[in-house]
């Protein structure tokens, strides 16, 4: 510090000059401060003296509160008008923690008047941790008339506690549709920030809930509607006396799904207590007819905030009911991959339908032996038979000729390994293996042997049941591909005007008609004389299917997989894809039964039930 003061002559003089500059600058800032404060004072005077009359009148008129009038959320129904999500008016008992001293003691006193369960208490505690203390939070929902009367009589004893009429969301079908519709939940901080960024926060004044999952989340903008404004006269205590004028809210639009509730229920029930997923699509439109993931959960638990214990049970269940298997579960497709492999081989000219070979039941690549699931092979096998009897060896050899690049290119065009863009949030992309993918994921080069596993739908392949269903629908529809969509149309709540969701096809794949015919004929053969012939005996319609089995644990070389020897959770997954009627497809289905073993035994019968119901109206 002393350096500058007693240092060299020029520095000393410069330091003095800098100090002089500082003083002058300080003076400038002082003047600046005074000027700015003068601006403030001037504005005060303008508002408080010159404009006082005007603002005084406004403040007096401000006995008129401008209150948001939240819109009714759009309802969701199935294709036959069955209600899947609707609103009802109910009364809640709400506490504003900031107006109350000891909240716990208050709840204790309240519980003498209305019933408050431990679940209610836990949920309230959770809510108040997530909310600001001046927000009004429900301690009890759905008060009975009796309870309302009892509380109203003693209302004066409970400042900070109010009864409010609110619209509630209810999902009458419960767990049947939770993986499709999702649910709404209370708006949290993250939602607020998102709404603020999108410039929609004002439209959510007065709204407590927002779509958190599924269709409820995907169509949030459509379902929510536009908030209106009520001009309400209030008394000196701030209570509303009467409504003076209102800009009514515009109710959210209603959604009508492609799904048929009874088909959905039938498919859901067909799984029994097995874990799995099923997606049924109308090939000509991409409309989703059924969308099942089991086990499931009750979405109504989430609407007013789930209590911690129920949440823990759902989260920790080994059956993972919160996992949307159809949308976000990814599985190797097993032999259901073969029809697509065959079509790829024809498209790239690597096989003709007639080309065949004597199947020995194994294939050597270098010094590695790939085995067929049938010891000794299937005899003479051409393309048709390779699908009908599900020959592995045929595809081992084909894999080698086709190469991973062609496989990846073809499968990606059918939509494998990419999000389908379905109108349910939370979709997984799955994995379509390729050279580039492996380099990126593992930093290693591709091995020829890996192509062989990929060709029969094992190895790195991993797709959602939804992708498999969409691909089956595209195949059934001769390569005209639609984005799968559960919502058929959006219906304006007032005018009833309908806006269809997905009228135009996504893309048309340039497949040769004859090639398609070969593959489709073979899939018909599967259900007539092949692996699932017995399941479809006497169906009364022609269907085209393919069974699949995907390995959960790797079977070592020289070992045999014997189902009864492995633990249930390590058993193979059973898969099945099918469309019908074969000559004019109206429905395409893909499904998986986790740890179900062989595809024809546990998966195909579920598909048969679904087709029987959808095409013939047969139940059970």
């Amino acid at each position, binding site marked *: 510090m002393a350096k500058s003061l007693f240092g060299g002559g020029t520095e000393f003089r410069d330091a003095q000059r800098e100090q002089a500059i500082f003083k002058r600058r300080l003076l400038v800032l*002082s003047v600046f401060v005074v000027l700015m404060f003068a601006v403030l004072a001037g504005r005060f005077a303008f508002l408080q003296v010159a404009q006082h009359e005007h603002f005084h009148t406004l403040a007096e008129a401000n006995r008129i509160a401008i209150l948001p009038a939240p819109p009714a959320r759009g309802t969701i129904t199935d294709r036959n008008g069955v209600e899947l999500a609707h609103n009802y008016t109910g009364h809640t008992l709400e506490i504003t923690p900031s107006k109350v001293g000891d909240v716990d003691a208050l709840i204790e006193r309240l519980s003498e008047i209305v019933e408050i369960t431990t679940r209610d208490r836990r949920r309230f505690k959770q809510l108040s941790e997530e909310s600001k203390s001046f927000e009004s939070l429900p301690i009890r929902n759905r008060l009975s008339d009796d309870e309302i009367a009892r509380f109203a009589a003693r209302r004066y004893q409970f400042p900070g506690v109010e009864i409010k009429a609110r619209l509630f969301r209810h999902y009458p079908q419960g767990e049947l549709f939770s993986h499709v519709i999702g649910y709404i939940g209370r708006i949290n901080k993250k939602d607020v920030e998102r709404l603020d*960024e999108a410039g929609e926060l004002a439209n959510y004044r007065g709204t407590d809930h927002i779509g958190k999952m599924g269709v409820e989340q995907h169509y949030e903008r459509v379902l929510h509607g536009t908030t209106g404004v009520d001009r309400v006269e209030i008394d000196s205590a701030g209570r509303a006396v009467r409504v003076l004028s209102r800009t009514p809210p515009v109710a959210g639009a209603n959604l009508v799904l492609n799904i048929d509730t009874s088909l959905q229920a039938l498919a859901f029930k067909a799984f029994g207590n097995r874990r799995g997923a099923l997606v049924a699509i109308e090939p000509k439109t991409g409309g989703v007819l059924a969308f099942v993931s089991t086990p499931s959960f009750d979405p109504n638990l989430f609407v007013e905030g789930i209590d911690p214990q129920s949440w823990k049970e759902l989260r920790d269940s080994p059956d993972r009911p919160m996992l949307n298997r159809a949308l976000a579960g990814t599985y190797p497709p097993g032999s259901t991959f073969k029809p697509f492999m065959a079509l790829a081989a024809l498209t790239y000219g690597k096989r003709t339908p007639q080309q065949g070979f004597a199947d020995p039941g194994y294939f050597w690549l270098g010094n590695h032996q790939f085995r067929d699931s049938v010891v000794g092979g299937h005899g003479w096998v051409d393309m048709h038979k390779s699908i009908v009897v599900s020959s592995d060896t045929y595809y081992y050899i084909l894999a080698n000729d086709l190469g991973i690049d062609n496989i990846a290119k073809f499968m990606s065009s059918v939509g494998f390994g990419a999000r389908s863009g379905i109108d349910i949030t939370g979709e997984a992309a799955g994995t379509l293996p390729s050279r580039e993918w492996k380099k990126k994921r593992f930093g290693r080069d591709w091995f020829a042997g890996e192509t062989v596993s990929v060709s029969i739908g094992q190895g790195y392949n991993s797709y959602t049941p939804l992708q498999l269903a969409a691909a089956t629908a595209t195949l059934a529809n001769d390569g005209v591909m639609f984005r799968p969509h559960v919502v058929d149309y959006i219906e304006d709540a007032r005018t009833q005007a309908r806006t269809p969701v997905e009228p135009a096809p996504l893309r048309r794949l340039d497949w040769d008609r004859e090639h398609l015919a070969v593959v489709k004929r073979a899939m018909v053969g599967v259900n007539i004389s092949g692996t699932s012939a017995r399941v479809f005996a006497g169906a009364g319609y022609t269907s085209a299917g393919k069974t699949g089995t995907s390995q959960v644990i790797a079977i070592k070389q020289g070992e045999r997989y014997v189902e009864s020897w492995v633990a249930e959770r390590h058993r193979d997954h059973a898969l099945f894809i099918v469309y019908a009627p074969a000559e004019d497809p109206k429905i395409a289905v893909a499904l998986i039964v986790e740890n179900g073993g062989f595809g024809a035994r546990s998966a195909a019968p579920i598909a048969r039930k679904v087709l029987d119901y959808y095409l013939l109206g047969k139940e059970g």
Partner: protein
Amino acid sequence: MIAYYLRRAGRAFAANIDGPLLGGVLLLMAAGLVALYSASNAGWGRMSGQIINMLVALTVLWVAAKVPPHYLMRIAVPVFAVGIVLLIAVALRGEVVNGARRWLNIGITRIQPSELMKIAAPLMLAWYFHRYEGTLKLRNFALAGLILMVPAVLILRQPDLGTALLILGSGGFVIFLAGLPWKIIAGFALAALASAPVVWSMMRGYQRQRVLTLLDPSQDPLGAGYHTIQAGIAVGSGGWTGKGWLNGTQTHLDFIPERTTDFIFAVYAEEFGLLGSLVLLALFLLVIFRGLMIAANAPTTFTRLLAGAITMSFFTYAFVNMGMVIGILPVVGVPLPLISYGGTSLVSLCLGLGILMSIQTHRKLMNS
């Protein structure tokens, strides 16, 4: 004997306290509590919290006043360096809260390094100009500008435009006071004007909305415009002498949003009118002018610049907040110094005011 020790202890306790500054601070805090009591509907919940906040903040002030300025000079560079490292850590692996990456989890708790920068940036620049005292060239100013840009850009990218501007402001005051030539200042002013359209195109939707709302509050009556409209009515309806304590209709009928925090001035102005508002302005002027006086009397370049920057930051907060409430500035989240409810801002303001007192009371020691 006991009386002697008590007197000595009392003197030691008050040794580094600057009377006029403390007087201004306490009066402002008192005004804040009066307004807060009304704003919280005569409830004690927030009052007791705020009183505790004030006691903590005053303790911080007292400790800061005891720390001699040469010690601050020693830690200026390390503190700034730590601040930068933390900001980079935030950019790389900070936690995203409400869509912005501002927080850093350090195991025990989460911290917001941009708060630290509010004091670290002027500290660093004051140290820098002190270091080159007597030999200041244009390139020193350029380098100082660069030093300031580092934290500002890091914070801007979080994104946190408000804090970035406040830090640019406090650092800018240091550079201005150090003697940045007027010609360059004029150049910057012109460049700023010319780049306004570019800035506009880079702003996010909600930021633009706030500016547009300032021009025409009625455009957005349920959103940000609502705040401006209702705060304006509250202030204007206060008249000459106000509606009286606890009698503000705007306040008590729930028309003023955020009335204990950012919009507390609307509560005050409604109930105490133009006279009360001018008294409050006078109290702010008292603190600011005492701070500028301390800066003028400070013995070294470091303490001069630091005192000037702290004081001008205090002014900026007060001006921006009141300007926002009365509708001449856009709605930004800046609390009214020493008045608004909230611990963080109280503590960081009192830290700065404590440093001012330290500069004032240690100046003889340094001169000798």
